[in-house]
């Protein structure tokens, strides 16, 4: 079965033939590229969002529709990236999957079970990290295991392991404020991984990192993902990062947040942020994203004028 891409792609990629592989995912033929995704309805989903809407009450009593009719399916072991302009509801969406908020409408299913609260099968790395300042680095990493009732000796071992993983072994007994921004992000990653979640939700986790550390952590994350087979939903505002990491990229619209388009990323791994193919693929998503960013800027401008 071969299908022509119907969307307005750049000339180089429009001609590319796409074929679907056995797992129902799109695979690139000749050249690596991205393609609009058709989710196979018979696929079993790890996470599925059905008709999710969420309204916030704002200060002046009016309501803000942050998310509107979001439908997304994430397969087991998939790496999904979500991009969108600032304020489009990316963090809100992750909070919903984490069970920290309830949607105003629609359902969140994980393994076909309704999500109605937080669970350690889904761990969220917050945009603000939310590391505990009263605990040392090691104790922060240990926290989730402690809540789960993992025995102490095993906890200690796993803390060591995860400290090594994020290259922070020397900082086990430091307090959070003694670390740099990038180190804090790595602690947050270790804390999340140490609880061994099935679904890892990451909210712009590498935004504050220098390029070298970020590249390193991209590699690490990809390796951990391959090793553990966990499902990752990764929010970023950096389209190239999304393509570097994701099997698929979902673009959200600005206010209300809807899924504007989904793109399958069919570039072979390992990829690198600076690969020309990554840049090329990013350009297409960027064009769509720019439209939304302009909308968000216009909205903000109106807000200033009002």
């Amino acid at each position: 079965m071969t299908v022509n891409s119907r969307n307005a792609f750049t000339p180089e990629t429009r001609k590319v033939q796409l074929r679907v592989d056995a797992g129902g995912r799109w695979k690139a033929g000749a050249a690596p590229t991205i393609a609009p995704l058709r989710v196979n309805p018979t696929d079993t989903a790890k996470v599925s969002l059905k008709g999710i809407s969420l309204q916030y009450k704002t200060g002046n009593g009016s309501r803000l529709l942050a998310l509107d009719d979001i439908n997304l399916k994430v397969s087991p072991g998939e790496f999904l990236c979500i991009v969108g302009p600032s304020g489009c509801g990316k963090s809100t969406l992750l909070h919903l999957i984490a069970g920290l908020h309830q949607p105003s409408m629609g359902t969140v299913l994980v393994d076909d079970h309704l999500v109605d609260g937080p669970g350690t099968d889904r761990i969220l790395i917050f945009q603000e990290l939310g590391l505990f300042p009263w605990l040392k680095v090691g104790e922060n990493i240990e926290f989730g295991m402690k809540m789960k009732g993992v025995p102490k000796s095993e906890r200690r071992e796993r803390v060591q392991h995860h400290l090594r993983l994020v290259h922070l072994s020397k900082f086990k007994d430091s307090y959070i404020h003694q670390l740099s921004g990038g180190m804090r992000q790595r602690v947050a990653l270790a804390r999340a991984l140490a609880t061994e979640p099935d679904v890892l939700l990451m909210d712009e986790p590498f935004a504050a990192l220098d390029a070298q550390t970020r590249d390193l952590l991209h590699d690490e994350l990809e390796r951990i993902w391959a090793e553990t087979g966990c499902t990752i939903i990764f929010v970023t505002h950096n389209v190239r990062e999304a393509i570097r990491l994701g099997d698929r990229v979902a673009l959200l619209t600005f206010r209300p947040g809807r899924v504007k388009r989904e793109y399958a990323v069919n570039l072979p791994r390992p990829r690198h942020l600076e690969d020309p193919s990554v840049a090329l693929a990013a350009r297409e998503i960027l064009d769509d994203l720019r439209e939304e960013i302009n909308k968000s800027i216009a909205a903000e401008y109106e807000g200033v004028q009002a």
Partner: protein
Amino acid sequence: MKSVKKVGKHVIFYAALLGIWALLAKLKIWPSYVFPAPLGVLQSLRDGFADHSFWIGIGVSMKRIIVGYALSIVLGMVLGLGVASNKFLEETMGGLLVSLQSLPSICWLPLAVLWFGLTEKAILFVVVMGSLLSITIAMEDGRTQMPKIYRMAGRNLGASGLKLFWYVLLPASLPFILSGLKQGWAFAWRSLISGEMIFVSLGLGQLLMTGRDLNDMSLVIAVMILIVVIGFIVDGLIFRTLEKRLQYKWGLTSAT
């Protein structure tokens, strides 16, 4: 270098104070039972510790303050969190609590005596009433001021119910409630001493009244010094250290 200077200043200040005191006593403007000399007070201190009456007084008062303060904390937690978690209570009871705080705790004594008689319970009641309000208000503040992210992060990592409270909400709000706890302690200490002065009860307040009954001004001043020193030690040693530790952990100081 700085601390040496600071200690020096204190030494000079207290030496001067003692000097003026000794000089005034030497001049014998007032009789010694009205204005005792420093040496007389020192003698009273020594006697008081030698015949164990000070030790007993301290012991009894400390036991009361610890029990009363602990009760205040537990009750204050329940009340404060209860008030903060309920919008209706917050709007209505919050105001009542603040206005009740203007009531000197000794005003509860007549009520306590009528309820409990001249007993240990009456004194404890006064102590609790003295500190409960500031602790309740502190807990309420702590709960509302604590950054929401910690609660979410705790729930996200599998904490709920009592575990969430103990391992997340309490430590996260500690910086916001510590000053209230400190204030509560100061109020409790004052209420205790006033309560003890009213009827025979052992304790430091009682010792003060003994001094008055015996017309022994040296004893009165010696006990007052004791009360101040204990207050200073608890504040300086316990609360300051706690505060410093907290500031260090949270990075609130430019600690080197």
